């Protein structure tokens, strides 16, 4: 099989992080608006209003499995030519009277309104004064950042501006920051923390509401899950309110146990209780995993995933016995690559469709972990693939129970007869 282009062969080289996307490179990266929607999508008690064409409104409804209603101005030609702020103001008032229970509103800017130079903040201030509800502007036209990471940052900056100083709880209460509750993963994390006597104040942004964000400071500790999206937020809260934070990961056995120990230490909980919990949970997992490990052992895995998940999942796969022959982030940071490097072979960033195809045909992986867009290409090529985010009914992958879910899903993918039916000859 030829793996080389005809005109000018572009060698398959590892790309470092942080490069701007090459036009025409068939990147999987998205825009700042997507990033902002991804983070804020499920925030409750807020009105979400997109100022832009109907497409941005329509697509903005697709991010995240669970989300709050999304409203928009669906700007037309008239607004592009004569300005759309009047329409935005009207839409905002109408939205607030249709959903009177909200405590505040998020206004999203888009490419079209960004280019016509609309100043959303004047409308926001006006409406804020009149209605006494917070109106936050996300200045996230699609072109404004090189990837969705820019939108993630903007969204967390907006959330950060909501947080108020408050009294710390005496009991061990924590916030989960950068935990997106994919397929209900937060449930397992909350369960494990509850077993230690730790209560969760809110899950940013998997399961949260404006009133909980305003009172974030009630918690004694922030647990940072996704470092790519929420690290700045945790650091910001530390510098403004002196809230300590620890980086945790609940993907995999050792990471979950280490994270539980970290949390216990940071909160000054008894070490023996933690060890007891870990021993009990780990024993169950190990027993369940043992007969399956020979299936995983030495199998070659390829990862093509967003950013923050590449490292933790590469480590998890190694723990299960896989060899991670390649890993590609879509919009990785050097930190993500540092995390992933010890566990993976070929490491690159922002692979185009052709690069993914060549990675597949050169590395011939036994298992591919990738996103919901690229999974179909992988399957088309005949490689067993597992996609993230997974469907809710298959359950979360975080924590001890999540590891069992993941291992079961991998087992299904690896043993599916469809990939090894004898050819028709």
């Amino acid at each position: 099989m030829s793996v080389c282009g005809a005109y000018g062969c572009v060698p398959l080289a590892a790309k470092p992080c942080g490069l701007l996307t090459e036009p025409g490179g068939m990147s999987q990266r998205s825009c700042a608006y997507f990033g902002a929607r991804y983070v804020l999508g499920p925030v409750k008690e807020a009105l979400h209003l997109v100022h832009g064409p109907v497409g941005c409104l329509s697509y903005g409804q697709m991010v995240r499995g669970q989300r709050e209603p999304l409203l928009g101005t669906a700007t037309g030609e008239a607004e592009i030519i004569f300005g759309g702020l009047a329409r935005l103001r009207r839409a905002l008032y109408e939205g607030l009277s249709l959903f009177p229970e909200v405590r505040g509103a998020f206004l999203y800017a888009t490419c079209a309104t960004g280019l016509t130079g609309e100043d959303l903040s004047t409308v926001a201030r006006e409406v804020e004064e009149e209605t006494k509800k917070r109106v936050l502007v996300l200045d996230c036209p699609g072109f404004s950042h090189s990837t969705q990471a820019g939108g993630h940052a903007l969204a967390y900056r907006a959330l950060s501006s909501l947080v108020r100083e408050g009294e710390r709880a005496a009991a061990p209460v924590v916030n989960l920051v950068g935990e997106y509750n994919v397929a209900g993963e937060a449930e397992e994390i909350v369960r494990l923390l509850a077993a230690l006597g730790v209560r969760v104040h809110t899950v940013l942004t998997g399961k949260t509401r404006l009133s909980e964000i305003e009172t974030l400071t009630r918690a004694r500790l922030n647990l940072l899950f996704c470092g790519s999206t929420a690290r700045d937020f945790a650091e910001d809260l530390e510098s403004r309110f002196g809230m300590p934070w620890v980086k945790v990961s609940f993907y995999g056995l050792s990471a979950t146990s280490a994270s539980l120990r970290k949390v216990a230490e940071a909160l000054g909980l008894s070490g023996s209780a933690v060890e007891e919990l870990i021993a009990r949970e780990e024993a169950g997992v190990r027993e369940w995993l043992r007969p399956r490990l020979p299936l995983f052992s030495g199998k070659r895995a390829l990862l093509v995933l967003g950013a923050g998940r590449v490292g933790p999942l590469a480590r998890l796969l190694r723990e299960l016995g896989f060899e991670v022959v390649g890993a590609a982030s879509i919009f990785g940071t050097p930190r993500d690559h540092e995390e992933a490097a010890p566990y993976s072979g070929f490491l690159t960033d922002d692979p185009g469709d052709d690069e993914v195809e060549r990675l597949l045909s050169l590395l011939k992986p036994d298992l591919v972990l990738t996103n919901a867009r690229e999974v179909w290409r992988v399957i088309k090529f005949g490689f067993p693939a597992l996609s993230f985010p997974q469907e809710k009914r298959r359950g979360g992958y975080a924590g001890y129970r999540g590891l069992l879910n993941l291992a079961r899903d991998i087992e299904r993918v690896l043993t599916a007869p469809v990939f090894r039916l004898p050819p028709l000859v």
Partner: protein
Amino acid sequence: MINEVKEIPVTGITYKDLRLEKKPLSPAYVPPPRELVPSAKRAVCIDPSRTCMPLGAMWATLGVHRAIPFVQGAQGCTTYVRYTFARIFREPASIASASFHEDAAVFGGRKNLVRGIRNLVCRYRPELISVVTTCSSEVIGDDIQSFLAEAQELLEEEFGPEVLDLTRFVVVNTPSFSGSHVEGYNRAAREFLRALARKSGSSSERVCFIPGFMMPGDIRELKHLFSLMGVKHSVLFDISETLDAPLGPPQSLPYYPRGGTRVEEFVRAGDAQAIFSLSPDAGSAGAKWLKKRYQVPSFVLPMPLGVGNTDRLVKTLSEVTGRGIPEEVRYERGILLDAMADTLHYTMMKKVALAGDPDFVAGVFRFVCELGMEPTYVLLGTKSASAAEEIWKVAEEYGKRPVVMNGGDQFEWEQALKEDRPDVVLGHSRCVNIAREIGVPLVRFGFPVYDRVGYQREPIVAYRGGERFLARLVNAILDHHYPDDRTHQ
């Protein structure tokens, strides 16, 4: 005497009174202010039943063999659409982005287009690239034609002049702030023909078809019908094999599915015996242009959904080609009629609400009238004068009095459904929430359907498709428990 009784008095509980009142989901449920329900009276749009123009142009392009859309805009414009296609078809869809960043917003997208086209040609060797604009490039005012000329010049310099014979270019202007995906497809149909179609002088017996947003299964069903009728055909924008391809390692990289309309088929369209647009709002512009430019007889017909609409296609085709209607086609039609008669107790007088793209809704509207159903609220996600006209014509023919929300949003339609509950909802996947809330079955059709497996392969058009669609509709009604209905005991 019984003969003197003019009207049999009906006593007892009427159907309407039997209906169970819907309990609000939570005690905190407050109905919205009445003045804000009609979408025309609001500035805010809630749950639109449409998306923006570029998607239509990308959809059309993916129906062409070895063609790649190049989206002159920010990355999101591409990623979202790729995700939409991935959800609907469970297939890879290669769409390239110009990756607009701040510099493009300031200096324009020239550099992005020139470099992007070069990368695309070099790395993917497509046979056709459609440059699809977006709101950003249209607001900036990118001069796409001159950028493209520069890109082509550079390609010739770098790879030799023959490179332009191997790769063709089509520019489709799709500013996202006007129209919808339907209009985007319409424009693509016109621009592809304008850029590629030629008249050689030697007439051909071939008939061209523009299918609009039909699924792969629908297109296959149409091809089956044309073969039965002995019509030589070209389906333009044929996604039936590009967005529904078998599993298997590709023979060469980069991966392209084997199917899709060939560029030559577009070139030869100028010689065609006739061109049919089977989706009036998505594709008629192409058919009309071909008629104007090359005098190819063009026919804009409603989507062949149900008996009457398919009859019209079959009759017109028979007239155009001079071939009779074969027995086999009549047989298939008979089977559809048989299925309709078999199941009339489940469909007759059932109240049905419709939502979706104008072409689909107008086509299905006639079908549900033929089934004896009562269409109540009809939402055309994209405003369309022709679809509304068609609906009113059919309504008059069958004596129905539906409420047509032309270009409204789903919020408006859903409020109406909450107050006057239909027995069944016909709509796309975004109608799931309302169907669940009011507790009636949803039968999916149109764009987008992403929460069914195999929907894209099961036809709804022509006689056999109509039979399949009817079976799905009736089964949905059968699966659903009606507290006030004893028809399926």
